[in-house]
């Protein structure tokens, strides 16, 4: 009897962890790309929200989650193109602009939601999931890990592709050089601005998709401020992972699980204040920072605009 309860709780925990972890993972992967290239993106929260809203609209009217994700990516791209122009091309302060993008994203999505739907919050139907043959029949692991939206598996695949890109390709080498020592990249005849621009655009698209996943699959509804600091969590995950995509994957799902712990505990019959649960991931991050911060690594050129010929 209690065993059954625990099994259900465990399934909910893992499954919920994945659902909550995917937006974090996508966004943190995106941030990894731009941090490696030397751009600190504090606008993630805003980009996720724009992606979440636009993606929701796409899924709501287009009746397709994929259309939603596509729209979310476009939304993220639009939000981060501001960052590309202002921070990468013009060399304006990445922190100030990041804050501005977050504020603008919060404000504009709330306003648009209000203008569109007033105070009602329409819901989407359940999304189709992929049932991985055979594997999904395994108890606990099966229904939690192998019955997810296809995007989840694509996202995980992306992590490994990215690892390969960083290690074995010229693109990855350029990205790393742009973050380590942009003048060296410039001297080698590669445009630093272009490299960083593409990196930031990737970040925006991934954050947009992450936001879209949050509203379309995770919640099924768009509410203002629904990201609740996940953009910032993604930044921390990225910093703790020290630019390694596989560690990002691991970190994102650990934090995803801590986000979904409330539901699981409720299923297991334990009731803990929702506020405390909400604080858990942040407390976990603070503990992680206190323990490991000394050893976190950031590219030397992070958050410094590149101007050719300036010494």
């Amino acid at each position, binding site marked *: 009897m209690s065993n059954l309860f625990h099994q259900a709780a465990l399934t909910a925990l893992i499954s919920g962890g994945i659902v909550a972890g995917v937006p974090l993972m996508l966004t943190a992967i995106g941030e990894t790309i731009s941090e490696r290239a030397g751009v600190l993106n504090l606008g993630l929260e805003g980009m996720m929200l724009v992606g979440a809203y636009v993606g929701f609209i796409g899924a709501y009217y287009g009746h397709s989650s994929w259309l939603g994700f596509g729209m979310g990516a476009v939304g993220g791209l639009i939000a981060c193109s501001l960052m590309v122009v202002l921070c990468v091309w013009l060399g304006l302060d990445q922190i100030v602009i990041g804050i501005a993008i977050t504020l603008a994203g919060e404000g504009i999505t709330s306003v648009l939601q209000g203008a569109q739907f007033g105070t009602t919050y329409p819901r989407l139907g359940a999304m189709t999931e992929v049932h991985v043959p055979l594997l999904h029949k395994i108890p606990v692991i099966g229904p939690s890990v192998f019955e997810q939206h296809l995007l989840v598996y694509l996202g995980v695949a992306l992590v490994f592709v990215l690892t390969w890109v960083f290690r*074995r*390709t*010229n*693109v990855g*080498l*350029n990205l*790393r*050089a742009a973050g*380590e*020592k942009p*003048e*060296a*990249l*410039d*001297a*080698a*005849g*590669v*445009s630093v601005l272009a490299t960083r621009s593409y990196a930031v655009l990737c970040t925006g698209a991934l954050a947009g998709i992450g936001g879209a996943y949050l509203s379309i699959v995770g919640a099924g509804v768009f509410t203002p401020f629904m990201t609740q600091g996940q953009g910032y969590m993604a930044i921390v995950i990225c910093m703790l992972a020290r630019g390694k995509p596989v560690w990002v994957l691991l970190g994102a799902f650990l934090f995803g699980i801590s986000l979904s712990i409330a539901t699981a505990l409720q299923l297991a019959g334990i009731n803990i204040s929702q506020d405390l649960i909400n604080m858990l991931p942040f407390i976990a991050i603070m503990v992680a920072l206190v323990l490991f911060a000394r050893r976190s690594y950031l590219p030397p050129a992070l958050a410094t605009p590149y101007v*050719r*010929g300036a*010494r």
Partner: protein
Amino acid sequence: MVELRGITKAFPGVVANDDISFDVRRGEVHCLLGENGAGKSTLMGILSGIQRPDSGRIRVDGEDVDIASPRDALELGIGTVYQHSTLIPALSVLENLMLGDTHKLRLDGVSASARLKELGTTLGVEVEPSAKAADLALGRQQQVEIVKALWRGSRLLILDEPTSMLTPQAVEELYKVLSRLKENGLAIIFITHKLHEAAFLGDRISVLRRGQLVGTLDEQAVKAATPEQLEQRIVAMMFGDAGGGLADAVELKAELSVSDQLEYEAQPVPATAEEVLKLERVSVRGEGVEPGLDDVSLTLHLGEILGVAGVDGNGQRALAEAVSGQRRLQRGELLFFGARIGHVGVTGREKLGLRYLTDDRLGEGIVSGMPVSINIFLKRIGQAPFWRQGRIRKHAIDERARELVERFDVRTPSVDARAGTLSGGNVQKVILARELSFDSKVVVFHKPTYGLDLKTTRTVRQMIRDMRENKAALVISTDLDELLEVSDRIAVLSRGRIVGEVKPGPGAAEEVGRLMIGDVSLGTRAGAA
């Protein structure tokens, strides 16, 4: 092969290049000589695509070209070794070399290794492809930079002040590499501010002064003249007959001529002289790639100038900061006039009269956005009589600052001018005013003349000499000539340890150079070819 015609480039406030015409041919070394700030680096920046000229034309093989970016320069076969390293410390040698090769998506390590071997044979150098750039000795790093500049088949090699960080032995080796390249038909532009380098290396020599090309000595002129005549002529070109006055120029020349003509002023200080500063088996932690100090003992007597020689990045910063109080001692003790000061902070030591003239003038020496007056008082914030009960007394500060600005001959519009607007030499004078006044007793000079113009260099060296009078100085420098000239003893620092002590005099330079290399396997192996 490459020709510059009428190049002009202005920055706000200065004309860096004024109507300069310059060319270089296959199989020659063309030296570009000039003081700091004469516009040498700007001119080469234009050739390598870092800067764009305001007007003028560049011709390669007789055709007009537009060099808008470093990529364009590389495609035209112009490779550059910049003054500041462009190697990425965190990457391997091979990765550094492959950077920018964007024709393929995948990194091709195999063919890159082959290319490295091929170029290595040509140059007579051998580098481990998988070594991290940060782990290489500076001489070796520079060889990698040259390989990198030649990586895509360059026909013109530009070297911007390549010897400033090298040991005498590594400089020798660089000369060898350059002569091999010359034989292979490469055109080489060698930028330097050192007279003897230009006289030794150049097939032709051009001199830049305040953004203008004041003359070029062609092959015949260079070959025909004896070294002394050549130097005389170059000095005349560099400082001109007008303006500074010839007497001044001759004096300057004497000071900057080749090292075997140095006058040594070393004065042995009696062992009975008071010990003003003593490091007893001091160890401090390193920072990043820079080593710390490992069991260093040094003694400085009253009236003595102790030089510390070493290749850059061998613990100089750690030594300076350990003495100044910026870095905590891990082990050992520091004695100042016999008193233990290991636990005393920066401000406490500065009050005692122990001062530190930093080498990183813009990075930590001044706050560029603040007025000159405040910069002079940076180390006395909150102290009477310039602050009273925490409140600033602007008039007292300005008055004293004006006095010091005059005494140290700082050229500034007023004491209210932002320190960042001053030239390098005047910034150094502001820092000197801060460190040498207010009852200084012992001063640590860290690269005191690095990057300064000749006149300021002379002034600063005189100030160091003046320390013999009832004070003492610790001079940490990578300029061996400077140390041989001013110090009474020279200690040699290598990988955070004092590896020996040398008395200035004939043959001292070679001895210091030998000690500097220390562990041979990590230095630049002369016999690697």
